[in-house]
């Protein structure tokens, strides 16, 4: 028998059933033999009749299983009755023993987990579409999974918490998501989850343990040298080690992402608005413009692992920040900018909240954060309040708290990872935007106006398109040496001179990256284009790039001849 789990399951079952089976065989054999040998009543000729083996087995079949069926061809003699009593008790007890053994075996948690693992492995092997392996199904994992499945991607989840995996079964995802309660640091379980399968296109490591994340990253890299790895890490040392595994590996640090979000919000709210809008936050629109909050003082509550990064970021941007922190060892280096003590009315006042433009509450306790907001409202109700929400379950409370901006690290990470997967050009796009437009609000405003007029609304579709087999029509014309420009592929079929409600955000050819590419850019095979599309327009665009006739019309303005007869006749 093989080493597969199936072999293991049957092995366990058979091993445990050996004793009951042999006991049953023995009891049946003795009982039947006795039944056959014990003399029965005499027939009309005065000859003692004996039971046949067939009848003995028949008799046992209904007594031993306690069916209690009373049909017999010939009446029993007293000797037979006596032996029947012996048979009945021994065989029934043996049956109970065997059945009890089976039930206790089925209830054995070890066997159950083996069975679960087995069925999980089988379904993973049967998966027909590409999938991501998600290790860790916490807040971030579940938000990410929602995004992935909405984008039509499939996933396999490993989490060591059985409750979380049960919760996974109850979610109504659009694609089937398989889950197994397992410790992903064990390489065998990674193999079970199909990390070596060709259909596994990426591994997302999002557990809360730094050590586990590192171990999973290393094991995955050894098992699959070419696969994409995205790993969560909050410590710089670990980050270095994870990056050292090499290949296509990315590290996301929730604290750093959070800090850069914050600094962007304060320093350049337009980019932040754009970011929120592109990432499809439920009620983010482009029109909501938070006024720049650059000038003035800020108060930062909590100077832990996240608070310190936020502080550094804000200082880099030249923003004046005062820290309130209760542990003295945390703020030794920044004593001139910090107020020591538990957060209460008095410390908030001492930190100068009254004269500040804003307040950032970023401790790792939601209760504490909410309480601080409550206190702050008493001191300075007009200050701009940004609060960190740690647990997704507390959403209702935060919405009621009357804060200006809620940042959820798990949500931020989930969105970021999602875009790394569905729109890989988005990150360089934002990096470029920050670089180029930080000091040029006019240019940025142009982009914003273009997005508002062309797309508007909320929740746009953001997608990276590759000029390859996924654009068969474009490829066809490129092969014929026809010039296809970027503008051509997103013209409106019903009105050729105008364009579909979408905006190309970025274009990449090899190493060359161009944000907001011009419409007369000539496409070449292998180009990547990041489009921002108004919901509902995607189908029209897909027709443009898939249908040769549609694209032919868009390129020339003439209805292409479809039949070969007319093509010949028009020559």
């Amino acid at each position, binding site marked *: *028998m093989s080493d597969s789990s199936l*072999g293991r399951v049957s*092995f366990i079952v*058979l*091993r445990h*059933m*050996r004793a009951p*089976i*042999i006991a049953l*065989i*023995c009891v*049946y*054999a003795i009982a*039947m*033999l006795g039944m*056959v040998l014990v003399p029965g009543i005499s027939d009309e000729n005065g000859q003692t009749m004996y039971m*046949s*083996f*067939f*009848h003995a087995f028949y008799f046992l079949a209904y007594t031993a299983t306690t069916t209690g069926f009373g049909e017999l061809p010939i009446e029993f003699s007293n000797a037979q009755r006596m032996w029947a009593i012996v048979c009945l008790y021994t065989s029934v007890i043996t049956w109970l023993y065997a059945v009890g053994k089976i039930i206790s075996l089925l209830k054995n948690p070890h066997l159950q987990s083996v069975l679960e693992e087995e069925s999980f492995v089988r379904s993973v092997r049967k998966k027909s579409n590409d999938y991501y392996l998600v290790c860790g199904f916490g807040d971030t994992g579940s938000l990410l999974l929602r995004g992935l499945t909405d984008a039509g991607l499939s996933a396999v989840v490993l989490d060591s918490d059985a409750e979380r995996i049960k919760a996974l079964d109850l979610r109504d995802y659009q694609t089937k998501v398989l889950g197994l309660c397992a410790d992903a640091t064990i390489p065998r379980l990674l193999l079970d989850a199909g990390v070596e399968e060709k259909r596994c296109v990426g591994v997302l490591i999002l557990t809360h343990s730094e050590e586990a994340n590192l171990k999973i990253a290393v094991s995955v890299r050894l098992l699959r040298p070419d696969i994409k790895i995205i790993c969560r890490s909050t410590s710089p040392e670990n980050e270095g080690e994870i990056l050292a595994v090499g290949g296509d590996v990315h590290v996301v640090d929730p604290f750093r992402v959070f800090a850069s979000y914050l600094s962007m919000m304060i320093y350049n709210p337009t980019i932040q608005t754009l970011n929120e809008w592109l990432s499809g936050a439920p009620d983010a629109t482009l029109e909501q413009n938070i006024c720049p909050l650059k000038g003035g003082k800020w108060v930062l509550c909590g100077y832990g692992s996240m608070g310190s990064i936020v502080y550094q970021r804000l200082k880099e941007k030249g923003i004046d920040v005062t820290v309130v922190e209760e542990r003295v060892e945390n703020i030794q280096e920044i004593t001139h900018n910090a107020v020591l003590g538990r957060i209460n009315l008095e410390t908030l006042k001492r930190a100068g909240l009254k004269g500040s433009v804003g307040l950032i509450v970023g401790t790792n306790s939601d209760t504490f954060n909410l309480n601080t907001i409550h206190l702050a409202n008493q001191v300075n109700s007009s200050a701009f309040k940004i609060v960190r929400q740690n647990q997704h379950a507390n959403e209702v409370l935060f919405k009621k708290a009357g804060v200006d901006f809620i940042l959820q690290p798990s949500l931020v990470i989930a969105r970021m990872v999602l875009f790394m997967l569905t729109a890989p050009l988005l990150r360089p796009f934002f990096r470029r935007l920050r670089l180029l437009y930080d000091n040029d609000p006019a240019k940025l405003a142009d982009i914003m106006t273009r997005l508002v007029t062309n797309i508007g609304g909320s929740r746009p579709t953001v997608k990276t398109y590759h000029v390859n087999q996924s654009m068969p029509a474009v490829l066809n014309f490129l092969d014929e040496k026809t010039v296809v420009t970027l503008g051509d592929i997103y013209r409106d079929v019903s009105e050729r001179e105008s364009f579909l409600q979408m905006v190309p955000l970025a274009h990449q050819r090899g190493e060359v990256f161009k944000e907001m590419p011009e419409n007369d850019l000539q496409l070449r095979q292998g180009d990547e284009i990041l489009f921002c599309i108004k919901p509902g327009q995607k189908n029209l665009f897909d027709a443009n790039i898939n249908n040769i006739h549609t694209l032919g019309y868009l390129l020339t303005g003439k209805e292409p001849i479809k039949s070969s007869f007319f093509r010949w006749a028009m020559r």
Partner: protein
Amino acid sequence: MNAEKIVFSFFIVLALTLNFGFFMGELDDLSHHNIYELFATIVVNLIAVGLKLGDRTQVGAVLLSTSLVANMQLIAAALVWGYVTQILGTDLTPDNTSVIVSLSGGALIANVISVVMLVSETLMSRR
């Protein structure tokens, strides 16, 4: 020497000897073939299957399959016997007897293979 080995080999060898005992004699002469011996052969063979269950080795797998073959043949023989005497209600004719005995002969071969494997495995192991 351990108890498990003794019990295991005992039943495998007993399965063969009983089977042989039943098979011995004229092929179509019922008086040479005793029904109790067939019964005992079936029981011992079933026990042998039970003992062989759950062995993950290659040898274990082959041993199990030989026992399964032997049982299949013997139970088929018992079914023929039961069909003729209980359902048709007649005594066994030489024709029926030869079918039953030849089926048990097939089981005998399977049991011989089983014992040969048992012996050779014991000789191979240097413990």
